[in-house]
């Protein structure tokens, strides 16, 4: 896997974080992914993926203790411009790859 490519789960986590915007941290990311993927998602896997993405420079994180009413600190994440560029490239590549394939896929099913 090259430096500029994303593994499937990394892609999913990045997209979920993007959707959540300023409210992105591990718990809502897990819930978001479970809602979209309709399957159980491991929180530990999300932790690990977030760390990896951060070390690759695709995410920045900040500790926020504004949520003092819950009595604990959260680590919010935000996508870097590099991540957004990579997402766009991935989307464009996938779109190109998918172009004209739907028809073949549906025909082979019937």
């Amino acid at each position, binding site marked *: 896997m090259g430096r500029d490519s994303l593994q499937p789960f990394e892609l999913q986590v990045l997209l979920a974080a993007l959707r959540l915007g300023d409210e992105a941290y591990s718990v809502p990311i897990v819930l978001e992914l479970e809602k979209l993927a309709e399957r159980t998602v491991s*929180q*530990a896997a999300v*932790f690990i993926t977030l*760390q990896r993405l951060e070390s690759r420079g695709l995410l920045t994180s900040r*500790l926020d203790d504004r949520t003092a009413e819950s009595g*604990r*600190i959260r680590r919010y994440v935000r996508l870097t411009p590099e991540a957004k560029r990579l997402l766009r490239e991935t989307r464009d590549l996938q779109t190109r790859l998918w172009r004209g394939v739907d028809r073949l896929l549906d025909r082979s099913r019937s």
Partner: protein
Amino acid sequence: MATSAPPRLIRAIAARCLAPADREFLLGDLDEGFAARAAASGAPIARRWYRRQVALAVWHGLGRRRPVPAGARPSQRSLDMSHWWRDIRLGVRTLRRTPVYTAVAVLTLALAIGANTVLFGIANPLLIRALPIKDEQTLGWLLLDNANDPNVRGTASVPQFLEWRARTVTLQQLAARESHGATLTGHGDAEHVTVMGVTANLCELWGLHSVLGRLIGPGDDLPGAAPVVLLSHHYWLNTFQGDRSVIGKTYFLDSHAVTVAGVMEPELETYGYSQVDVWAPERLDPTASRSAHALRIMGRLAPGATFASATAEFKALVAESARLHPDTDAGWTARIVDTHTAMTSPETWILMGLLAIVVGFVLLIACANLANLVLARIVARRSDLAVRQGLGASRVELIRPLIVESLLVSLAGGVLALGFASAVLRIINATSFDALLQRVDIDTNVLLFTAALSILTPLLFSLWPALGVGGESVADVLRQSRTSGGRSTERRRNILVGVQVSLALCLLVMSGLILKTVVNVQRLDPGFDLSHELTFRIEPPADRYADDSARTALAMRLVDRLAATPGISAATIVTHLPVFDGDVLVTFEGTPHDGTRPSERPVASSYAISPAFFTTMGMHMIAGRAFADTDLGTSEPVAIVSRLTAEKYFDKVPVAVGRVITLPGPDARRVRIVGVVSDTHSSQVTNTVPQIYFPITQRPVSAVSVVIRADRPGDRATDAREVMREVDSNVAISMPKTFERLVDENTGDNWIVGGMFLGFAILALTLAGGGLYGVIAYSVGLRQREIGVRLALGAAPFTVGRLIFVQSLRVTAIGVAIGLGLAWLLAHAAGSVLYGVGPNDPGTFGGVTALVFVVSVTAVFGPVMRAMRVDPAVTLRSE
């Protein structure tokens, strides 16, 4: 649902394992995830989810991956848990990649650690939980040793106990116990029971507990106190079906009314105490005979007193008793010992010591084997290690993954070892006749022992090879990476193989000697028939039979009726059985070897018998006549001596017949020897002592053993009970047993010991053989190039094969030489437990040496053949 929280223990583990910097937010996120899941799917599912997430997070070393801050000291880095995590994960991956090595290593360790666990399981009750006694370490037991025979342990008389209790200052709360048989009536059939008579303070001294009712306490032994007994737990369960209303009921013990006051705790049923049916207060009669020795004495060490000071005091007390009462109290010396020593014989300790050496050797051989494997793995990774060293890895960092890998193998081996040990202990449990061996199991002590062994063993087998890592220059290593790994590695390998061979040989010799002993004891001819006899004891109650003559007469009536029963060919009575029971010694005068001092008088083991004894036992007369019905209490006192007695004291068998001997004592009875009979073995089983027999009508006793001769003795037990009931239904008989059963009970456990020695020795030989094979095969593999060159230069394959063969066997020969020396030393140290085989037994030494060479040649054969088949062209091309 709002009240449910994540599992506390799991959360604590997570908090411990996660990096401090990230701990708070990771735990917070996990808590939040838990709350969301608990609300959606319920607490149990949420808890399961939580456990899984924590396991995953910890496994992946989460939170530990952030770069070490610049400036952190190296020591902090190497202590950081994350390195260990990384090494553990690396170790698991490496081991999974080499499944054969992993399987061999785990199995080797499982067997070796298992062998040690088995032995510890057996020694555990002896060493650690001897008896459920309060403050066991300060309880001193009085052992009286016979000055002439170290195998005989004495007991004290009531007057001795009372005198010593009044005078001792080193032992407090002096207590005593003695066991005897009695007849219990009032509950179904009359029953023969074993009674443990104890002084009133014993229960308190030992800190015993009752499961029902009360214990025996102060005052219970005083004249006039209401007579009470305690039932042992097994007797209460078996005979009274665990009936709780038994407390307060009255029964008859030897026709004396006694009230059941309580039921003893089951924990006490170990050693001889498992045979006890009834506990009763011992009423000490100061006027009792000094020659009636029956009491075992123990007391609490006084503050400031030690076992040594108590021993010194009791030595003086015993010496004074001997001086004041030379007839009854002489010939003994005293020791105060702890409970463990008091409960076991010196032979037990020798055997346990030997077994400990054996299993220790098995573990060492296994370690040597594994050390070789580790050495080979290090050699295989040499270039990798050298490169890492070149890049700046410290020696600790190079060695740590190797140690962690070995630790993982060892822990897996330890888990398997527990399964193996538990299976072996279960077999021992099921087959043993010994109360102690029937109790062996895997408890916390055994678990701790195995865990400790599993953690320490890897240090033994991986540290030594690992110490060689990083000791050479990087360039050297890289240059010779395709060779055998240097001379020092090869020397290490040879030393390890030599050690294995010597240890295995030593074990085989010891096991051979012990097995020969077991076989000799088993084959031993006791001097009488074993296959047709059934025996039991009767003890007619004192209130129905006024004196010993009346009791003996009852026993004679019983055997007359038994002898007339269909299926029974003969029946007899005897005071006690040869071999199976202890010896009762008598001295006499009137022989050519009387000596000048009382201690030099002829001595013999004496029995009182009915006329049919010799025919029932399958013994034969050598000279003179057997006893007849005409030898009565009123006729001339007669005796029959054994062949050994006749030869030892009268020089020749015929000389003894017709001689009159005198039995010393107040009445100085003169007895005529009327016959000489064949010898039987003594209670020491392995030797024969002089014996003398008297007609029981002339020396009546209170209790006798009955022996029946029949074709199928086991089937005659019911007849025995029925005939006894017909003769007198108030007299109990003990459990009838065949002689074969008695032999099993006495010697059956020898087979367990012998089997353990043999099993461990075979294990050792297999490990050593496998180790030798592994090393030679590996060495041949590494020397392919050298062999290829030799063949290319014109060496014949046979010459190359011989070279490898001779080099391998040289290591074996050195190992054998060292092993023989070691075995000789051990065999001489263990000489006292051998029977019928000397510590220098040439058969065992020669046979084992040959066996070791055969195994070595077999192990070397395969690799040598491979060396001879090396194709020089292929080998040199691949270089």
